[in-house]
């Protein structure tokens, strides 16, 4: 796989190639990410920091370069996460919807095949996700959820590093045109 290292900003939307994925990838990968978050920390608790569903949402939104597709994936994955938590349905759904929409918007402007861009975007969207979720819990549910800035930054970095590797793997599942 070769990265376009010359520039990271796309001069026009035509430069950005829209990635296509087989239908089974769009179903199995988000399901596997949710399953990972539910099941794996039971045995490897140190992996509980990984927000795999969020990484998958960011990836599909960036690569599909479609805002509607991005927000749809985000909403579905977020609602699925809500279903497996004690939150009211929609809390993570709203957050992931916004993440999917904005990630797709950014993906239309940047060369998202560049690993550095992927690292920065994943880091940023993790922070956005955590902050917005914290905000919504306080605003909508009236709960006093603690927001640890340093911890969130560290977790964001770790998720970004894992995200770049995950994206590299998911690139292999793209349809070749």
């Amino acid at each position, binding site marked *: 796989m070769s990265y376009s290292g010359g520039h990271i900003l796309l001069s026009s939307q035509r430069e950005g190639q829209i990635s296509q994925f087989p239908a089974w990838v769009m179903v199995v990968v988000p*399901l596997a990410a*949710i*399953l990972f*978050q*539910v*099941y794996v*920390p*039971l045995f490897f608790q140190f992996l*509980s*920091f990984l*927000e795999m*569903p969020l990484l998958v949402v960011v990836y599909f939104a960036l690569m599909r370069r479609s*805002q*509607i597709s991005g*927000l*749809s994936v985000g*909403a579905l994955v977020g*609602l*699925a*996460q*809500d*279903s*497996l*938590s*004690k*939150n*009211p*349905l*929609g*809390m*993570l*759904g*709203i957050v992931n*919807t*916004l993440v999917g*929409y904005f990630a797709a918007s950014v993906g239309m402007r940047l060369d998202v095949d560049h690993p550095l861009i992927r690292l920065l975007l994943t880091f940023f969207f993790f922070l956005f996700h955590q902050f917005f979720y914290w905000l919504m819990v306080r605003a*909508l*549910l009236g*709960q006093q*959820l603690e927001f640890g800035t340093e911890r969130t930054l560290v*977790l964001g970095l770790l998720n970004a590093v894992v995200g770049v590797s995950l994206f590299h793997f998911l690139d292999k599942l793209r349809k070749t045109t």
Partner: protein
Amino acid sequence: MESFLNRYRSITVLLLVILAQLVLVAVQVKNDQDVRMIRVWTVSAVTPVARIVEALRGGSSGLIRNYILLHDAHEENRRLQAEVDRLKLDSIYLKNEIGLADRAKALAVFQSHTPSKTVAATVIGIGAGTNSKMVFVDRGTVSGVERGMAVVTPDGIVGKVITAYPTASAVLLITDPDFAAGVVSQKGQWRGTLRGQGTPICRVDYVPFEEKVEPGEWLYTSGDDRIFPRGFPVGIVKAVHSAQPFKEVLVDPSGTTRGLEDVLILVEGVHQPIPDAPPANQPVFIGTPPPAGAVKPPDNPASGPPAAPAGTEADRLRTQYKDIGDAQGHKFGEGIPGSKPPDFNLKLPGPVGTPVAGPAAGGAPAAGAPAASAGRGQAPAVPASKSAVPPGGASHP
């Protein structure tokens, strides 16, 4: 209008989706009702896969450890370190297996002794979210589980079922901030409301400041909450801070201290009295006594000594040394330092003079025998090592 919608189609869809979810949240929060259908779909999609993965993991772990790792070890067999590493891995695996068997046995013993009707369940997943204090277990409405049922282990309460699906249930753990249960102190009989804090330590609210609360007190369920039957262990008071009008009591929950793998769901809870003594940390298995004929009789009962008196080896040594002392007119506990000690190698006729295997027969100082016994943990309950064999050996009177 159409061109406007086409131009702002994405943002319009975004706003609609966000609005729909906001309405969803608002309805749930306002009515305190859940949209069960979506949750059932998701749980039904995820938990069967989790069960399959769990079954595959359990079935294949032995194959992986016993074949693949052994195969690798065989390739590196020339290096001693590899062999040591493999043995260490095996040791850890076996310890884990023993631990698992112990937990299963403890659960079974508890299940058979508790008057409440229970259903055993295995934890198959945790709730989504990095700060989740919720787990999924592999029993649902098909097994008779309903929302609101209590979840316990032999060590104490664990949480309560907040949602029951056909094949799985969601359990809110005792450490979740939304968890609450009525508790009563074993010692002071004061009452309070146990709450989770999102940390491993819980707190008890509404304990009046005039109540005498001491760290180390055991707390039990009071039964007031109509979820947990009275008399189940909750935890130990870890710290108490005076405050007005209620004390701040921190509790170390006992049910989750040894991890969560297997739990019991109380399908029909039965109230029990608060026990007088704190619960033991671990159930102790006491086996059946051996049959009377199982002890092999001596080969020549006519000439040989009769069977040794009942008791430990230290008991036998104590009796032996006391008889040796009596035979030589020696009284233990008297005599000045430097006086002549009795001859502990003296052979006495009859059963008590029978040399005990080991040091007494070899002429070595007899002090070694009880010391060795004590070292194996057999002597602490017996004062024989003090009175019969002094620590300084034979020179001590």
